[in-house]
């Protein structure tokens, strides 16, 4: 509203000035980096996404896309069980992320704020980065040998009476897929969480203890809020990787745990781009709904942004 006053003045002013001033005011007022970012974001993200949505209404016949709008592709998504694949993928990804968060947080807390010596810390962090240099397939294939019916796990579990003799092992099940993903994605969650926790000033923890907080209160009121940026980064990285998991469901699920990547790969082998487009559209929609729900719940239960004050101070 405040802009109306200078504008009227500009109109009363001499024509030569009037022609320039509103533009100058407007240009001066625009946050250029932000505007450029929004334009780039629109071109790089929104436009392709719209293209993808449009594409999902075509179909593929004999390796060629038929550009006649129809709902056949969408119908096939539900008929072939691909919709369940999305739900299954989301379920497994969220379960893995949740388990990972608990494990990684506890582990990072011990490593960053526990009594671990400098050497132990350095060694542990170095060991955590080793998997990044190894191929995921070759790491996962080892678990097949261990979890399989001829591997050492079954005799071990039988020995301590946990499973019946002659059991087939947990290989080729959702359990095995969860297990493999939790092992593989642990560093992905742990490293950002560890960095965030180790950046929490020790004297803040001392202060909290000193002011009479129990260890649990210190954890929930000081350590967790202050490490939230790292926790959120860890959740995003892990969730993204878990959604895209390809090796573990193939190798440990025995092909019976059909996840999104496997389904996409299969559709690609018949060049069914509209199916891929429809899957992408569905995932973006589901994630959009989840983010919206997250924000709404967040609003109800407190001001999330307060956790980021630490970044500004």
């Amino acid at each position, binding site marked *: 509203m405040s802009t109306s006053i200078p504008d009227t003045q500009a109109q009363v002013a001499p024509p030569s000035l009037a022609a320039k001033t509103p533009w100058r005011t407007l240009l001066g007022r625009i946050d250029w980096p932000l505007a450029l970012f929004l334009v780039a974001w629109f071109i790089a993200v929104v436009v392709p996404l719209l293209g993808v949505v449009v594409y999902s209404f075509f179909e593929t016949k004999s390796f060629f896309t038929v550009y006649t709008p129809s709902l056949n592709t969408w119908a096939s998504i539900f008929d072939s069980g691909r919709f369940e694949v999305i739900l299954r993928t989301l379920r497994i990804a969220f379960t893995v992320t949740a388990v990972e968060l608990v494990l990684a947080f506890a582990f990072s807390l011990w490593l960053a704020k526990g009594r671990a010596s400098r050497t132990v810390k350095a060694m542990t962090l170095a060991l955590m980065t080793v998997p990044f240099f190894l191929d995921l397939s070759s790491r996962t294939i080892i678990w097949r040998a261990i979890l399989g019916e001829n591997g050492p796990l079954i005799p071990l579990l039988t020995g301590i009476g946990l499973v019946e003799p002659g059991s087939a092992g947990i290989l080729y099940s959702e359990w095995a897929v969860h297990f493999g993903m939790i092992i593989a994605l642990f560093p992905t969650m742990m490293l950002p969480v560890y960095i965030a926790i180790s950046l929490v000033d020790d*004297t803040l923890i*001392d*202060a909290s*203890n000193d002011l009479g907080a129990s260890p649990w209160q210190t954890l929930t009121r000081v350590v967790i809020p202050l490490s939230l940026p790292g926790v959120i980064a860890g959740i995003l990285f892990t969730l993204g990787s878990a959604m895209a998991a390809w090796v573990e469901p193939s190798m440990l699920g025995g092909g019976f745990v059909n996840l999104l990547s496997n389904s996409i790969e299969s559709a690609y082998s018949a060049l069914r781009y509209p199916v891929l487009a429809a899957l992408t559209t569905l995932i973006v929609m589901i994630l959009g709904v989840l983010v919206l729900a997250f924000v709404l719940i967040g609003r109800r239960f407190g001001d999330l942004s307060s956790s980021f004050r*630490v970044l*500004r101070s």
Partner: protein
Amino acid sequence: MNTAAQAPILEIQDAVHSYGSVLALDHVSLRVEPGEFVSILGESGSGKTTLLRLISGLEQAQSITRLAIGGQSVIGKPPAQRNCTTVFQSYALFPHMSVEENVAYGLKVRGVARAEALRQAREALAVVRLEAKAQRSIGQLSGGEKQRVALARAFVIRPALLLLDEPLAALDEKLRIDMQSELVEIQRSLGMTFIFITHSKEEALTMSDRVVLMRRGRVEQIGPPVALFDSPSSLFAAEFMGFENLLGGRVLDTRDGTALIELANGTRIRSRVGGDQPLQAGVDAGIAVRAEHLRLISAAGTNAPAGVNALPCEPSPAAYRGKYTERWADTPAGRLKLRNWEGKNVDVPSADTVIWEVEDSIAFPA
């Protein structure tokens, strides 16, 4: 020992603590009475912060005979179960909370309802004159304001004992002097016991009821500021308290709180005995005299006046230092420093002797 009617608010007996091979506390004992403002003074590495952390419970002593707050032993108890709070050197304010949330923190974790906790927090902020900034975030405060928030956060829960870990070290000089008097005022008005860690002699002397001087993990001397300033009980205490002239000799005789000491060149000096340890005849002793207590006279072979110590000397010319002048005087016992605050009219021509009152020289075991 004096058995006071009131129990001490803090009692430490024979605390020993070390980090690796470094002995941080070497058999330290301390008693603090309710309402006292006690400063723990020492250089860095003297063990003063370790002592504070033992009291607060942030560190558990390796060996301690008794550690009691308000008469209750707190050995082995976590910080949360000790009736004392700390004002940290770095303030340690929670960056994700507003000013009032910070202050209310100690109340909230004790289960005080949110509204009541915030009300008390605002009261505490009023004491430190920060009620107007209750809603601000920590990043928006200046250093002095952060200091006062940290103070309010610590005293709002009414601890028996408030521990302050060099709280003024990070402030600039003017602010520091203002905060010194403000801290004392707050302490008086709250009637709370303060234990104040500092490496600054001025802070300790101007603010405290009693000063604990620490050195290498040991308590060097405990006493009111005046006692420490005027009657150091050791060479270290004398040096720390700014005595410029330090001499050494052997005790010949003691009488009425004074000692007769023979210097290496045979000159005899009578000196007040500092601290509370009596000096025995025959032991080695140190003598400390402040530069402003030395005077030059021209005695020309005559005996010095009675009750006054005298040493023959050869003075250097006075050096002008603004408000005062300084000069050196070479004596058989060594080089002494003299300071004169009274202007140039006291320049004694052909001065050949330096003299000082018995009262102004302090003797202590070497």
